[in-house]
């Protein structure tokens, strides 16, 4: 499998707090990785470092042949903005732009960043809204939608830039339980289309059924990486075992 994202010895501290100690993994094209782990383990920080929302301290990150970070330095500004467009991020609390309609949320970045003509951007946006089952909500404003619908719009907005990889940081944690299903279904449909994804989630059943590999992260290190069946039925590491057992009981 061709590697799209390669992370080597990634380190990140906030002051004296080491949040990512030495993270290394590869993500193959079309692969879906779920990341599990207790609160404060550094899962969000990992995604935020890879999307340049936090600065990386050390390590090597390569995306689709482009070096993002190496030898303590970032790529040039021009390279960075190109790399940014290859990575999409879906936030826990959606972060839709409240003053823009649903379709404007989807077209603003393609038009302003990629200079896509308006008509083309809108056509593509409508196709994406259709894909997440919200074609008829194009002209609504975010406050008029349920949380589940807002998150589906946020997914469509990330897809509008046609990213190579898509990250999800607990995409259903802010939702009422009855609304998680519709969002997970959309993510699953992306997996079926071989979208390359990293999904940080507490939804064990979903992680088990949708992923190709599962990473268990704790205290800033990857404790275990396994195939989902292995991870959920026969985890190697005792820490992983505790975490999975606890999570299953809930």
């Amino acid at each position, binding site marked *: 499998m061709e590697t799209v994202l390669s992370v080597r010895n990634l380190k990140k501290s906030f002051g004296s707090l080491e949040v990512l100690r030495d993270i290394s993994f590869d993500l193959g094209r079309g692969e879906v990785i779920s990341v599990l782990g207790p609160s404060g383990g550094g899962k969000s920080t990992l995604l935020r470092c890879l*999307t*340049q*929302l936090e600065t990386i301290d050390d390590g090597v990150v390569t995306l689709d042949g482009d070096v993002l970070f190496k030898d303590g330095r970032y790529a040039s500004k021009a390279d960075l*903005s190109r790399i*940014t*467009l290859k*990575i*999409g*991020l879906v*936030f826990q*609390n959606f*972060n*839709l*732009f*409240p*003053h823009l309609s649903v379709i404007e949320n989807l077209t*603003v*970045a393609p038009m*302003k*960043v*990629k200079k896509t003509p308006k008509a083309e951007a809108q056509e593509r946006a409508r196709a994406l809204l259709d894909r997440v089952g919200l074609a008829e909500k194009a002209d609504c*404003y*975010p*406050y008029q939608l349920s949380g589940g619908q807002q998150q589906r719009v946020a997914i469509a*907005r*990330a897809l509008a*830039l046609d990213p190579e990889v898509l990250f999800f940081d607990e995409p259903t944690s802010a939702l009422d339980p009855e609304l998680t299903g519709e969002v997970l279904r959309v993510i699953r449909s992306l997996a079926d289309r071989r979208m390359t994804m990293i999904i940080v989630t507490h939804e064990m059943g979903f992680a088990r059924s949708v992923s190709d590999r599962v990473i268990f992260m704790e205290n800033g290190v990857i404790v275990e990486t396994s195939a989902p069946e292995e991870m959920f039925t026969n985890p190697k590491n005792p820490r992983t075992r505790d975490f999975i057992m606890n999570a299953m009981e809930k």
Partner: protein
Amino acid sequence: MNADVFKLLLDGTVITLRMFATTIIFSIPLGLLVAVLRMSRIWIFSLPARLYILILRGTPLMLQIMFLFYGPALIENFGFSWNGNRMLAANVALILNYAAYFAEIFRGGIEGIPMGQREAGKVLGLSRTQTFFIVVLPQVVKRVIPPMGNEIINLVKDTSLIQVLGIFELMNTARVQASAKVSVLPYLVAGGIYLAINAVLTFVLSITEKKLDYYR
């Protein structure tokens, strides 16, 4: 009340409205600039902005007007004088004072926008400038309209303070005419004019608020 008194009150109204309009036009951009400096992480920018806001909000506007106009003449060899241009000095004092209040309103508005909005802009590849003008500023406008409305209405009334420089704006005219004609009418007419101006402004502000009501 005869026609010439009424004419004098109208002349005063024109001065009041001119003071008001020029103060709004110049103090809003200046306030935005002070707010941006105040939020800078570089102290050479933020400290002067803090001091500016502290002094302009912490001392009486009337003192500021008098200090600005009379101050240069009282300091020996200061090398600057208003050449008797009281209107200009009064106008500058109002602009500087209101910019300080607007700066704090804008700062509150900008800081009140959740961090996630800027992060979403960044992840979508928008530059910092694009994110500010496309994502942040439109939302700030909606948030600052109500507090701005308060200040704008205060400003209409605060223009009366420039009478300490002997300018015959509406309030000063009313005062002089009331005692000259031994009549309460100039006061009532002046009050009515202030009220009318603020009624119009209140109406315009509420329309603006309604226009921005399409989202939450």
